[in-house]
């Protein structure tokens, strides 16, 4: 797995990290190759709105922001803005494919409730 860490806490503290599973990293790399975005970074963010109040958003950007948290593993760079990181601490991002797969999934211990489709939560 690859993790983003808050420099003020113990790097292995699960509550202070955002973790991407190997499957998630592999899927991100696959998309980058397919869409010729190898030089881009993946931004994971929380945005307002969605049925439970907050939503997860993922997208490729050219460069990190000055205050972003950065993960780098196996050629994939993931960035998270500071405010989103507060809501994402302790989250595990996975990828589930197959007939009943859900795509990218977020297991977030900070979420008080999650909508039925899993893409929105309340903090």
């Amino acid at each position: 797995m690859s993790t983003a860490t808050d420099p003020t806490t113990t790097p292995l503290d699960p509550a202070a990290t955002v973790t991407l599973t190997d499957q998630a990293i592999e899927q991100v790399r696959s998309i980058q190759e397919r869409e010729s975005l190898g030089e881009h970074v993946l931004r994971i963010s929380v945005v307002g709105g969605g049925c439970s109040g907050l939503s997860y958003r993922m997208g490729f950007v050219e460069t990190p922001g000055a205050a972003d948290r950065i993960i780098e593993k196996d050629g994939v760079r993931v960035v998270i803005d500071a405010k989103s990181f507060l809501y994402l601490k302790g989250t595990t991002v996975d990828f589930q494919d197959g007939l009943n797969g859900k795509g990218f999934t977020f297991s977030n211990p900070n979420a008080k409730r999650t909508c039925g489709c899993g893409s929105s939560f309340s903090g």
Partner: protein
Amino acid sequence: MAAAVPSAVVATVRQAAVFAERSDLVAYEVRGSDALDLLGRLSTQDLAPLRDGASVTTLFLSPEGRVRHRTALVPAGEVWRALDEPAGPDVEPLSEWLEHYTFAEDVVAEPLTDHATLAIVGSEARALARELVTLDDTPGAVRLDAEGRLCVAGSFGALPAVLVSGPAPVVGALAGSLRDRPGLVEADAAGWLQLRVEAGVPAGGAELVGGEFPAEAGLLDDVSFTKGCYTGQEVVARQDTYGKVARRLVGLVFGDPPAPGAALGDGPRAGRVTSVAPEPPGEPAGHLALGYVRTKEAEPGSRVSTVDGASATVIALPTPRLR
């Protein structure tokens, strides 16, 4: 011209129009390249089809589906204008509410200071607006004129209405010109309350205090059932699908004037009296109020009682003299 008595306000709405200052509405500008995106994720209405010259009344809900703001939204070039009615004095201002949901987006919402809003309601409201502010009388039509007046054609319950919002001196001058026109009346707080109760229109701080569902308050016209996700949607959709709404806002006729806030029934699903008209409506006989009752008691003709034993009959609104 002194403000008209409440019964004269209601009578004039049918014949011409009444006007009143809406100091309960707060005007905002929402700016930023992500304004449409953020507002769209939060709004019960679909904003994407709106273009300059059109408006929509939308709701902003809590994640639990409860009404926090009822807002007229208007795209105006690079910004969105909002005329906001908070669901009660304990609800945070719209700008703070939007800021809570703003992360890295380019969005800023600011209240417009020294602004006033005038409401014109009645059969002649839109003709007046066409004459005075050159507003098209299509429902939802909008005009932002050179004097900074934002004019929105809408409705007040089932009654035609226009809102004019702008710098206080400019709106004040319009109110002054309306006072000089024969046949129109100005509604003070009592007259506006009379009109609102007889029309069955919920208001922030009375029928809306931050904990009501849109279906309870009769606000489903402010909700799109075909747009994508918005905050609170799951609850609204579930209530619509299964029809499980515990309470409904209705008109009530009492023998004696009830106290606002009086509980109707007891238990966790008890209703309450929310607003009381200053004067009896004439027909039906009695004292008119708005209130929430259990859904099974919401049919016209049903009898309900306050916990103090005052009984009332549920009636359909608007009252006969407003239909």
